[in-house]
């Protein structure tokens, strides 16, 4: 008997039920996503987009969400896709990571592991002198979709923009804000925000960000992120290839439209085997030397 955890949208804790279900389909090819289908009775309400986690004796076999649902009387049919599929529904803006090389000299030494980073950008140089690094998995889970932010206030040379609907009641909540990897502390009032360069403020409805013009000028679509506000559930797993010790020679550029393609393609380009691994807390992206 498998345990199914059902986490409906908006709920904070899953409801756990026992189900007799066929095993999920888990392709070895990381370009493809796992699927899980179920038809029968479930003792809890299930909504479209509910997260579904399957485990047996503590071993997780599936982490995904309800993609299709049909309910007829007490019988329910759900078709679920693995969380990793959400990586193909995250737009990847143009981004690059620059390492050292013979053409240019670099003070910091970006590693492969920095590119796959899922955590918030470090605000002080790390062991390799890398600072303000926005990793691919961090951007995938955190980047606010690029759009027009209306100007709220201009006190030249500083500009304050407003994201309508990005307030504390939204899915952004009070998540830390980063602009191109730089932390923008949230202030207690809009006046405090306007008085401080590179800061943010949110009321219940909207988010405000004040930029330092001399740093950002009229940038075409800065990468503005709210930590894990758009969480896929994916985290960086095991990255081989001496990822932590070999610096990038040259630079790596985004040339695809979604993060899923980027993660899998980059791992394969490096000669690694990409793999999605389900654990109790997250789905981990591994890029490893040997097939799992």
């Amino acid at each position, binding site marked *: 008997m498998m345990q199914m955890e059902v986490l409906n949208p908006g709920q904070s804790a899953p409801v756990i039920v026992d189900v007799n279900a066929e095993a999920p389909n888990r392709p070895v090819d990381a370009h493809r996503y796992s699927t899980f289908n179920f038809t029968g009775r479930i003792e809890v309400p299930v909504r479209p987009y509910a997260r579904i986690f399957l485990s047996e004796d503590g071993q997780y076999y599936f982490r995904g969400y309800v993609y299709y649902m049909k309910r007829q009387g007490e019988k329910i049919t759900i078709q679920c896709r693995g969380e990793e599929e959400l990586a193909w529904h995250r737009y990847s803006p143009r981004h690059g990571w620059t390492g050292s090389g013979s*053409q240019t000299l*670099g003070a910091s030494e970006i590693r492969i592991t920095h590119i796959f980073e899922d955590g918030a950008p470090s605000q002080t140089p790390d062991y390799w002198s890398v600072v303000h690094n926005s990793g691919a998995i961090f951007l995938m889970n955190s980047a606010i979709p690029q759009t027009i932010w209306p100007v709220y206030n201009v006190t030249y040379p500083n500009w304050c923009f407003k994201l309508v609907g990005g307030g504390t009641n939204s899915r952004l909540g009070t998540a830390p804000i980063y602009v191109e990897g730089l932390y923008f502390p949230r202030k207690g009032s809009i006046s405090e925000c306007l008085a401080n360069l590179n800061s943010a403020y949110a009321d219940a409805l909207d988010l405000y960000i004040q930029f330092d013009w001399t740093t950002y000028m009229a940038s075409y679509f800065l990468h503005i992120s709210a930590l894990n506000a758009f969480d896929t559930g994916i985290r960086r797993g095991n990255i081989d290839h001496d990822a932590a010790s070999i610096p990038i020679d040259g630079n790596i550029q985004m040339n695809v439209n979604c993060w899923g393609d980027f993660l899998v393609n980059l791992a394969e380009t490096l000669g690694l085997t990409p793999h999605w691994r389900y654990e109790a807390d997250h789905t981990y992206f591994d890029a490893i030397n040997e097939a799992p």
Partner: protein
Amino acid sequence: MTQPNPIVDLYEPDLNSLIIETAGVPHPHCIIGQGYGSRDCQQKYSVMDLSWKGPWFEETLNVENGFMDNGGILKKMVASQYADRQADTRYQVVGRIWPRPRPGDYARLWLADESVARVLQVQSVQLYPSGKVGLELGRRVQDEIDAFNAKKDLENVLLDQYFTECGNSISSSGKITIGDPTSGWGTPFSAGSFTIPSKVNNPDNNCRVTMDISIRLATGIWQEEAVLLVDLGGTLQNGYFNHYVLGDTVSGIDMTPYIDFGHAQTNLKIYCKVRRNWSSNPGAQDITVTLHAWRRVVFA
């Protein structure tokens, strides 16, 4: 927006049957519209629902020749697509329903396990000999008529005539020295004097002025992450490309708000610097800047 006024309440326990079915492709929570321009300067506009707390599902929509100004089609097409995709769940109910709604009316559906009702539009109504009524609420299943209508819409679109070049382009070539963090911006390229005729800005033209920048790297210099800056007017404010790759062509920068139509402009400068210090600055590189004026059909 006014709230629809439901004409009937439907309670799940009173119904003979209820089928809830989501669409084969669920509705997106964000549609990112991608319009005119190359990757660095592409026109982008998103419609999203940040109040949604579940898994986040983004889609992109390519809008050919889309600009995000009020005279452009990018905002309209993204908003329209987003609205169309929101009704992704179909509710099929059968029961003794009175008053009997007509297609287009609204009904209030109370599910047994929910305390808040859903207000849904009636898509179709079916009458059974037994006196029961079948309603299709929310999303409607697409039929052959929809396929014919979609084809007809495509044939009616005049996209070929939507966006046409207005007059000849203006080009200027020269040299640019690429700077680095230590040395600063290097020596910018100055485009000399150019004039966009005032008649281009005729309201009937719904015009846009765009610019392409092409930097040709000397042999032995390879692509490098860089920042590119377009300055028209001396205030360094017309475009800052934070993730530019040295050597890439940037095409379709929307310059319209910064153009002084009918007057000579002599202060267009292009700056560039790589993100890491050069081990040895490779010197001046070839650069070409081209300005285009465009005429667009005005949609009411």
